[in-house]
């Protein structure tokens, strides 16, 4: 069936932006006792005690990012039990999770639900190795689907940087401290069984996940590699082209009139996005503008902005850097939040709905402003929405920043390979060769043209400018079976991702 964006999709097609029908979440499962005998000291023997069955759903969070040891450790033991056809519901999957590929090939894992997948597992899915269809959800919808029982988790394995014998968990302490466990909260409260896997058994006075959620605590040697947990890659770009994009973005934000006392802001950890934060930082200090909050994944730079008084508060769903981990321990205005508080569509007070600005990237953006951050232009999975579609929907002004041409490939295309974020929720594209504002904002376009020197053009003009540099790229078309679905924050299907041809 064709959805509202013209894509042929199975299941519930995306119908366009619809009024939200609030749903009541199921009752939270019965609470666990506050016992100290939950602790097990051997993962292998503990896994043998679990009532594992074929077709179960096991969940994991990705706060340890590319330094995570837990998913590989647990799944290696689970595989030994001989169970098959498991669903892995992981908030994200990184290159470090390469060992899962052999479990996919052995049919131990036949379905994956995640918000972002990169590396060998993404390749395996693209190459058709996963038996069932992978579901790529937004961060918000992952929480929604768990809380609404659409995704019913049998066992949640929660990598716990610090955990008490009773099962009180925090991300703020321990050798693998990652700050926040926002993406694990729904799993902890709604999974049928919750297993904390920790390398730091200690009294936890202020838990993010309380002991009443946790059935078992398993002590292992190490849950992660700190070098891979907090990224060292979140640096402000020094590329002059990227810096010009950031400067234009800041000028545009100011010109919208929304950049005033009490403004709210989210930006990613990419080089250009961070450069936008730096521009906004300077602008706010110069003009004495104080924002209400910044949110999302928190970088060192956002911590600096909080400490300089540019924002009153930070709402943090995951810490990208060590400074953020430290800040959340000591700064009472740096708040932890769950994925549901961040972006659950049925929570009218969610954080994304309160955003004025969000700065986002794009692998492709098309003439209808649909954005792809899920696949490359060859259709190979290399990411996923994360919070992209959630924040674009919620923010008053969703800004995509990108070089128009990168490595001889245009970011503007006639149709994106995969729709991650519907164009109806994207407001503007800022590139090094012009700024395109969605035509539904004609009054803003007229205002900006009259009052600023910003290079406002139609997105078609940007497309033509790109083609003048790159030539017209040859179309690739994947005709293989559907290997993954791009699922929107309301649960509808935006697009399909097909098996890629690996014959060449």
């Amino acid at each position, binding site marked *: 069936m064709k959805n509202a964006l013209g894509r042929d999709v199975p299941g519930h097609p995306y119908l366009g932006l619809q009024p939200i029908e609030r749903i009541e979440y199921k009752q939270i499962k019965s609470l666990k006792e506050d016992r100290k005998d939950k602790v097990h000291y051997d993962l292998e023997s503990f896994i043998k005690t679990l009532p594992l069955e074929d077709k179960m759903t096991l969940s994991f969070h990705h706060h340890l990012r590319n330094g995570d040891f837990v998913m590989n450790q647990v799944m290696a033991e689970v595989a030994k039990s001989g169970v098959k056809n498991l669903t892995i519901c992981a908030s994200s999957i990184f290159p470090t999770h390469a060992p899962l590929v052999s479990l996919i090939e052995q049919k131990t894992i036949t379905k994956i639900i995640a918000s972002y997948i990169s590396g060998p597992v993404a390749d395996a899915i693209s190459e058709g190795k996963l038996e069932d269809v992978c579901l790529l959800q937004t961060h918000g919808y992952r929480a929604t689907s768990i809380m609404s029982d659409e995704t019913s988790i049998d066992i949640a394995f929660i990598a716990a940087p610090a955990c008490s014998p009773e099962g009180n968990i925090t991300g703020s302490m321990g050798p693998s401290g990652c700050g926040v466990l926002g993406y694990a909260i729904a799993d902890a409260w709604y999974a049928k069984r919750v297993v904390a896997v920790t390398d730091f058994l200690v009294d936890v006075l202020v838990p993010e996940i309380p002991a009443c959620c946790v059935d078992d605590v398993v002590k292992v040697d190490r849950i992660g590699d700190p070098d891979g947990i907090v990224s060292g890659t979140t640096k402000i770009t*020094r590329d*002059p*082209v990227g*810096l*010009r994009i950031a*400067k234009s973005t800041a000028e545009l934000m100011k010109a919208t009139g929304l950049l005033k006392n009490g403004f709210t802001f989210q930006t990613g950890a990419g080089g250009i996005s961070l450069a936008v934060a730096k521009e906004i930082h300077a602008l706010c200090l110069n003009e004495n503008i104080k924002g209400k909050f910044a949110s999302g994944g928190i970088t060192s730079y956002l911590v600096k902005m909080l400490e300089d008084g540019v924002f009153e508060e930070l709402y943090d769903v995951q810490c990208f850097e060590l400074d953020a981990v430290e800040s959340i321990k000591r700064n009472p205005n740096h708040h932890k939040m769950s994925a549901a508080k961040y972006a659950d569509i049925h929570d009218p007070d969610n954080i994304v709905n309160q955003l004025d600005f969000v700065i986002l990237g794009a692998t492709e953006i098309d003439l209808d402003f649909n954005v792809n951050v899920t696949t490359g232009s060859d259709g190979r999975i290399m990411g996923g929405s994360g919070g992209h579609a959630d924040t674009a929907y919620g923010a008053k002004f969703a800004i995509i920043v990108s070089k128009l*041409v990168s490595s001889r490939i245009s970011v503007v295309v006639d149709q994106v390979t995969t729709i991650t974020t519907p164009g109806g929720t994207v407001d503007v594209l800022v590139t*090094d*060769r012009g700024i395109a504002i969605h035509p539904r904002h004609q009054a803003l376009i007229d205002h900006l043209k*009259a*009052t600023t*020197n910003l290079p406002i053009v139609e997105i078609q003009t940007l497309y033509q*400018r790109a083609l*003048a*540099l790159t030539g017209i790229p040859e179309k690739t078309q994947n005709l293989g079976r559907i290997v993954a679905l791009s699922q929107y924050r309301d649960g509808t299907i935006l697009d399909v991702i097909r098996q890629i041809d690996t014959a060449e």
Partner: protein
Amino acid sequence: MLRRSALFMPGNNPAMLLSAPILGSDCIIFDLEDSVSLNQKDSARLLVKHAIETLDFGSVEVVVRINPVSSQGWKQDLREIVPVYPDAIMIPKACKEDVEEIERFILEIEEEKQLTKKVKLMIIVETAYGIETIVETLRCSRRIECVLLGAEDLTTDLGIKRTKEGYEIDYARAKVAMAARAFSVQAMDTPFTDVEDTEGLVKDTLHAKSLGFSAKACIHPNQIDAIHAVFDPTQSEIDSAIEILEERDRALSSGLGVFSIHGKMIDLPVIQRAQNIVDLARKTGKLK
């Protein structure tokens, strides 16, 4: 043409050439000389030629710095570059004799290829001889639009140390600025070579501006905005200029020859300066 900044860019780097139109500089100087090694001269020449032919530079002025007359490559540079209509050719180590020889050769190319537009010249004075004979050099060609002081080569020629403060080039700066003004040619200041030191760049540019320079060359894109900020009129300058021009219009319509603002008599040089500020503000977009 608005020319506050001129960014030097090596001619042999395709990725940099591609981004030339979008870095925010008023003028781009594709370099075939010092930043290109001898074994890259041919490829740089062809790359720059194709870049000029292919890319849309919009309002960015395109200048090519050729190799000096003392080298072997300058004629080939001109043969390739002049026919693709750059806005200007930049002549390094300029003196009257070299400029005359280059102009003769350009004229030959223009006639042979029947080019419809004459290419302009920018010169770099960067030797003691070049500084001391600048008046003769400026007098010898009507194509010269801009003179750039090259302080690195000049201080090498003088055998003195180049400093951040730049006291050692004060004489050269004053001489270039004065001579340029005498021939209604723009004076462009030497690049500030510490690309990390924006504060130093601003200070250096302000000093050059105070001596009569209205543009500054740069060697990194991140220097462009700071240079523009120095040469752009401030909001109070713009407001004051507008007030002067409005008073002038009122005075003219009332048949008054002279007028005053806030008790100060406004004469012709002040009106001209106000007009220059408003023109510059319009060009830079600070005044719609």
